[in-house]
């Protein structure tokens, strides 16, 4: 089976700094693939290029046989490749439910003019959006906070909201940048289960960047390891855990530890 998404020789240079150097790997449909590596390794940069938030210096990203790098982010999102942000990036003065409703706008059948005049299709759209928002929030265990203003939510719920917004667009591939950051063990385990059910029940292919090694080893089908912008390894969690280069890269860095 041909891969769903291919990263081909992707390079990103910021002036003299090479944030990603000729990175290549494939992502299969319905897999959970993690990208790990020490801080500054170039993981977020890679995700930004896949979602076309920043252009590649060279190389390309192919999704379903089509190049998606160096386009506009909204076009890539419309094709089904959606990223969430490393920082908690949310719509501050919307409620959880409003955020999830607005994020479904790509599914709208009525035109903007139809919404203005309040056409029948537009009304049906709104009903459908609200219904799906409630379903999705229920699925994510966020029903109780659905009418909370986003700016009032605790850190853990903000991460979940970021994922909810991403999921509401009905993506084929969801790129999660550090979804477990700032969470305690229990919250992380909940989130791990949630991400897994997103894949299992919604058929979403998930790529994620994470530092929490036990969680990464637990959740991933495959792992790609970056160090100083280079891909140094790729394989299943057990292969990665026993990879010399990976152990070296992690032992060499102070603030990360590999959970073995």
């Amino acid at each position: 089976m041909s891969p769903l998404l291919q990263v081909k020789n992707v390079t990103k240079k910021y002036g003299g700094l090479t944030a990603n150097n000729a990175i290549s790997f494939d992502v299969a449909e319905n897999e959970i693939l993690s990208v790990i590596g020490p801080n500054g390794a170039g993981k977020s940069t890679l995700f930004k290029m896949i979602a076309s938030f920043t252009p590649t210096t060279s190389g390309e990203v192919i999704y379903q046989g089509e190049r998606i790098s160096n386009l506009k982010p909204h076009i890539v999102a419309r094709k089904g490749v959606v990223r969430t942000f490393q920082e908690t990036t949310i719509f501050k003065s919307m409620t959880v439910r409003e955020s999830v409703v607005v994020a479904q706008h790509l599914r709208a059948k009525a035109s903007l003019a139809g919404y203005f005049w309040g056409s029948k299709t537009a009304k049906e759209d709104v009903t459908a959006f609200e219904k799906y928002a409630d379903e999705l929030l229920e699925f994510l265990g966020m029903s109780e906070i659905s009418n909370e203003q986003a700016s009032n939510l605790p850190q853990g719920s903000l991460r979940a909201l970021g994922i909810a917004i991403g999921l509401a667009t009905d993506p084929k591939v969801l790129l999660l940048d550090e979804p477990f950051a700032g969470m305690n063990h229990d919250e992380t385990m909940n989130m791990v289960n949630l991400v897994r059910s997103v894949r299992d029940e919604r058929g979403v292919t998930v790529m994620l960047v994470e530092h929490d090694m036990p969680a990464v080893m637990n959740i991933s089908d495959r792992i790609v390891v970056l160090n100083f912008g280079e891909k140094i390894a790729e394989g299943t969690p057990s292969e990665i855990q026993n990879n010399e280069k990976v152990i070296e890269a992690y032992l060499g860095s102070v603030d990360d530890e590999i959970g073995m």
Partner: protein
Amino acid sequence: MLGFTSKQLIGVGIFLFMIFIGVPLIIGATGRWDFYFTLTSVALLAIASAGVWLTFYIGRINIGQGAFALIGAYVSAILVVKAGWSFWISLPAAGLFAAIVAILIGLPILRLRGVYFAMITLVLTQVVTLTALALPITNGAKGISNIPLPSGISLFGIPILPDFAGMENTKLAFYYTACVIMILTYAALYRLVNSRLGHLCRSMQQNEELASSIGVNISYIRIVIFAISSFFGGLGGAMFGSIAQSVYPSSFQVADSVNFMLNCFLGGLGYVFGPMLGTLVLYFGWDLLFEFGKYQMLIYSTVLILIIRFLPNGLLSIRIGKGGDK
């Protein structure tokens, strides 16, 4: 009805009654006919301010609405005087022309955010003034005067709009016209803000990156909004020219552009009807302070600063309170 609560409907009803029946009765009783001109001006300025408010809604500070008002005034004047069009056709044409100019200007400048966008819009008014001085069609510094009053329109022999020239009370006619256009403007604004386009604007105002990650074509929506905003500016300007029966390069100046923006701040950026209230209060506020002579500006500015300091969400936040309706 139309998604209004009954409380809102009563409010709208009282408002309509006041402007269409209450005001004429009061003016008739007090004999202050000059108030028609004042209130007509407020209505027209409120139309232009509505546009500025809309650009705020996508997170852009617009200090250039005077430019589009001036463009609208000239386009209408030229169409009526030189091309012999009916004013009523020239009015939407003026709005459309302003919108097209906004699209051309907006393409490069709408990428800018914050103070950078604001700075560029600040010079727009001056640019249009200088253009009007330079172009032959706008008659340079002499401007266009003696614009005829709006002529009547009839469809299949049925008069739809009366001939203003044949009226004894054009003040009242202009007042009604301005109010009707203002109400249509704010009704459109209200619908827009509460429709999907409005929700997309809100998402952009709060976080453009996240908005584009959920597939919002942010550059397209910015252009659409700026065009609508400038359409309102063009409409207001065109009406002004028709009432004054003249347009000059100085008919709208940078200070007017600043006032359009202040109207929005004062009324409240979170409320659709904020700019309308802001325009009314600012316009009358300035006049009321007239008797303070040379201290007029000082008092006026101090009060404005205090209001913005203590009511950052505008005057309407007093009544509606936190969260409020839209």
